[in-house]
């Protein structure tokens, strides 16, 4: 059963080669490879963390944007409302003013009409007065010639005069 007994020569070479191989591989292969692997692991973890924080930042910015947008929208609608109000107010004011002006003109016109009417009446009255005086003069002249006739005349004159 020589197969179960370790052979000295192989044992010797195996020990030597394995240890040399181990130390060389450790220094020139395993250390750099493991270093690279752990570096990559770190960089991936970092990238993921950065992406996550970017995502959060993005969502924050989005929220902010939305807030601004909403504010702007509100402002716009407020301005529109204001404008509308102003417009209505202006129209109303204008209407009001026009009405007042019209009223004023009407009143003025009426006053003028009244005034002129009064003036005309006064004029008529004056004319009537003069007429009356003229009539009275004629009557007086006729009275002087004939009494009866004078009376008739006065009567006829009086009936002629129609006030209004």
């Amino acid at each position, binding site marked *: 059963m020589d197969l179960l007994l370790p052979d000295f020569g192989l044992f010797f*070479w*195996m020990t030597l080669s394995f240890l040399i191989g181990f130390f060389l591989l*450790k220094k020139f292969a395993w250390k*750099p490879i*493991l270093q690279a692997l752990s570096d990559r692991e770190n960089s991936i973890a970092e990238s993921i963390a950065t992406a996550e924080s970017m995502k959060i930042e993005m969502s924050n910015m989005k929220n902010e944007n939305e807030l601004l947008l909403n504010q702007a929208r509100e402002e716009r609608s407020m301005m529109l409302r204001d404008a509308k109000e102003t417009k209505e107010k202006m129209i109303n004011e204008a209407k009001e003013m026009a009405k007042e002006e019209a009223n004023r003109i009407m009143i003025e016109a009426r006053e003028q009409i009244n005034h002129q009417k009064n003036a005309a009446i006064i004029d008529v009255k004056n004319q009537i007065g003069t007429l009356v005086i003229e009539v009275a003069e004629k009557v007086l002249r006729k009275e002087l010639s004939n009494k009866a006739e004078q009376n008739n005349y006065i009567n006829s004159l009086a009936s002629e005069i129609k006030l209004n």
Partner: protein
Amino acid sequence: MILSPKISLKAFVALLFLLVGYSFISFSQPQPIVNNASTEQHVEGEKKKIDVKEIIFGHIRDSHEWHLFSIGEFHATLPLFVILYNPAKGFSAFLSSKFEEGEVAYEGYRMINAKDVELDKNLVEGKIVAVDGSKVYDISMTKNVVSMMISLLLLWFLMTGIAKKYKKNGINKAPSGWQNAIEPVIGFVQDNVAKPYLGKHYLKYMPLLLTFFFFIWINNLMGLLPGGANLTGNIAVTLVLTLVFFVVMLFNSNKYYWGHIFNPPGIPLGIKFILVPIEILSNFLIKPAALAIRLFANIFAGHTIILSLMCMIFIFGAMNQVAGYSASIFSVAFSVFMFFLELLVAAIQAFIFTNLAAVFIGQAIEEHHHDDHAVDTHKSNS
């Protein structure tokens, strides 16, 4: 790598086919040789004997020459360097072909061959002894040693190539080629072996675990190549691997580990007398032996089964030619199945060795926090 990955892959596949082709030659050729030999021995030619044990152990055992294939009487073998040390004569080094299959003595040494074994069953074929019977230390570059050095060179070029690629491409470029193939394996060892058992000190042991894993794996695979050496199925190799692990474990063990062995806490005194010897045996003999023998036995058994299945063809063939051909169908089918199984076993055994080494080291460096008054000042390193 100078070759582009596409070309080197093709070259690899071609090499594989070439080696498989060789293996069929070498597997199919023992029959005529043995037949010739046996017909010479049995002049009547009534019965043809096949020495199955010789064929199987010839393939499994370490050897001073690298037998590639045989065609008829022609054996394609690479002679390897024989290095011997004799306290009286000093070192001597020469090619194993000088022995001429054990027929000739050279510089006062000779190699034991099959004829010597027939005369004395205690002798081991292929062993080198001094003619005058004095003590000889054989540190030859045997088939296993050469195979191991090839594997180590392969590992070296593969892994330093990958390390260079990391350096060249930086960490932010996607891995490619071998880098891409090996990176998940390294990640697997790190995440499934080192981290769970070794805790926060895992990085310290990663180089050792990776060396264990890839050394065992690549040698298991090299052993599966036709003409490959049965390195990990050799007890000397697994013993060295285990000793390295054992030394690392002992040098890094902390006082809790020793405390648990020699003075298990919370156990009545009477039971301690039974438990302490069991603990000592378990930690200093059974754990390392389990590691060494498990790997050795698994790979050894795998090789033996495949070779046995192949030998079936020749056993049946020696009885009857038709039986040989029909047995070959089943034998080949079974050995193809076994080859795939062994491919799996090659990785699994590498993983199990690495995993158990990590578990045992983890037990030795584990810090116990239940008696926490001493924990703060404690350092796990020796």
